[in-house]
């Protein structure tokens, strides 16, 4: 019982106190634990847990396949996908390099090399000659199988050169161009994540279409600040004249007058008066695109971003800060412990 209930709480409390007050202790061991080891331990723990997660995923999908539930062929695909990346990560390296370190007759070795790197023999020969003394030339694209690389090595050796095969080290294969894992990263993983990310462009459009409605004053503010930023940030925003915006503002104000007084004469007067006023001012000032600056989108978006937006964001940040602090204290003191099933 102690191991199951009290021990976890005790661990959370101890580690919590240590990482909270360790910031104030000038002692190398505690310092290195707080700055470095604490999160490192978590990373290691999370990495172990990932195996657990993968097992769960495989189990769920396998059940679907075995019971032939709806959509089971797709579940099989998920298992296949996992098996593939597991193979690329742990079993099949797919990256064997050929290094040429010496040659007697460059022309002979170049014949072999030329066919391997899709160049004419002359250029291949030049590459070899340009190679500095005591240096090695590594063929650009690694070989997928060990025997493939060995085969080339043999050919080069037969042509009077000295070549050897070097397998990419396990561990560095995840970032080496040419390994199976890297192929998977480039042609499966990257396009899939980038495309899911790009779907957002569509969703952002449909969400704004649906949600940006002038329902009440709050929604109107959301809409106005959104549109100003959207237009003010792209080149086209700089081409929209401040006067055009001014006319829109006059119309919007008149709409406000209309709903407020519910009197047609007033509305008409505000529209006509406003338009006249703006037009006269425009002729006097000569219609400059970026004057008056208050109604010029690039300037306006900058002001919104740096002032009201900062105020709103700051209020949220302070709230979040207090919330996280209070919640953390509850976990450290063990007031809230349902995350381990208490």
């Amino acid at each position: 019982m102690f191991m199951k209930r009290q021990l976890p709480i005790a661990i959370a409390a101890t580690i919590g106190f240590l990482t909270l007050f360790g910031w104030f202790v000038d002692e190398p061991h505690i310092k290195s634990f707080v700055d470095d080891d604490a999160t490192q331990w978590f990373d290691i723990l999370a990495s172990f847990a990932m195996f657990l997660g993968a097992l769960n995923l495989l189990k769920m999908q396998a059940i679907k396949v075995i019971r032939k539930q709806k959509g089971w062929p797709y579940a099989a695909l998920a298992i296949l996908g996992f098996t593939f990346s597991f193979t690329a990560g742990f079993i099949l390296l797919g990256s064997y390099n050929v290094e040429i370190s010496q040659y007697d007759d460059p022309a002979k070795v170049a014949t072999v090399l030329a066919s391997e790197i899709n160049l004419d023999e002359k250029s291949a020969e030049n590459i070899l000659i340009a190679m500095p003394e005591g240096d090695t030339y590594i063929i650009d694209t690694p070989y997928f199988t060990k025997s493939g690389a060995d085969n080339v090595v043999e050919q080069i050796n037969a042509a009077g050169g000295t070549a050897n095969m070097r397998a990419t080290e396990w561990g560095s294969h995840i970032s080496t161009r040419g390994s199976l894992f890297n192929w998977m990263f480039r042609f499966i993983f990257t396009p899939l994540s980038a495309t899911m990310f790009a779907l957002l462009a569509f969703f952002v459009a449909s969400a704004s279409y649906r949600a940006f409605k002038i329902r009440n004053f709050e929604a109107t503010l959301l809409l106005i600040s959104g549109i100003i930023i959207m237009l003010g940030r792209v080149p086209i925003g700089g081409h929209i004249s401040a006067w055009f915006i001014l006319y829109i503002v006059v119309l919007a104000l008149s709409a406000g007058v209309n709903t407020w007084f519910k009197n047609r004469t007033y509305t008409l007067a505000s529209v006509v008066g406003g338009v006249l006023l703006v037009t006269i001012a425009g002729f006097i000032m000569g219609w400059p695109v970026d004057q008056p600056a208050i109604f010029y989108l690039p300037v306006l978006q900058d002001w919104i971003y740096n002032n009201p937006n900062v105020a709103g964001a700051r209020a949220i940040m302070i709230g979040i800060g207090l919330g996280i602090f209070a919640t953390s204290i509850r976990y450290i003191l063990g007031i809230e412990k349902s995350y381990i099933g208490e």
Partner: protein
Amino acid sequence: MEKFLDFIVRAGSLDRRYIFIVIALVVILPLFFPLGLPIRPTSSSQDVYNTVEKLEAGDKALVSFEYGPSTKPEIHPMAVALLRHLFQKDVKVYITCLWPDGQFMAMEALEQVADNQYNKVYGEDYVLLGYRPGAEAIIKGLVSNIRKVYTVDSRGDFLDDIPMMVDVNQVADFDFLFSASAGYPGTVEWVQYAADPVGITMSTGTTSIQVNEVMPYVQSGQIQGILGGMPGAAEYESLIGQAGIGTSGMDAQSVAHLVIVGFIIFGNISFFVERRRSKKY
């Protein structure tokens, strides 16, 4: 009139798939048929351009790649445009990467600009030093001694064997520093640990979301100009007079924003018509 209003109301509850199609079209079509909307460089992009213009043939520029595939559309065009400008002026280019994927990005950009467009020679006109893990520590290392961080370049050649590395020992030996950055580690770290302490001229290019974070440094003159997101790249392309991905993207970007705003306005009109009607009945 009644029929027209009817249409508007019905269009208001539009299936969102029509919106998707319109968005896809306004993004794709300008890529094939550029509209050539005029691009007006902002003062901060102009500053970057002027700074590079001041460099002379043979000057040394350090360019750092700090982005990956996910932010490539925003940063890559500006990196390419800047390299074009540098090579055009025969400036020697040294490239470091603080992000692991940055190296792949740099290789791609160099292949396109240095090898295929300007026929520059590796080791004499440009060198790719490659990626080293360590974030700020790497920047601090470069400031004190480059050879401490890099003994070999990305191709495995010893730094001492590379002709253009002669007499290049620390950040202070460069004439210009550019950071193409999508986050941490990036522009802010370069300012704090390199540009400020050493006093080297520095410019930067960042994602649009980061601009506001970096802007204070630009205003105070710690950074000479900033290119913000794809629009920044487009402005730079127009300055050097070589249209690229940024420029062709800008038409799509502008039109897409206009269309989205159009959708919002249309949605509101139909919303009003509908509300009016429901009040009447």
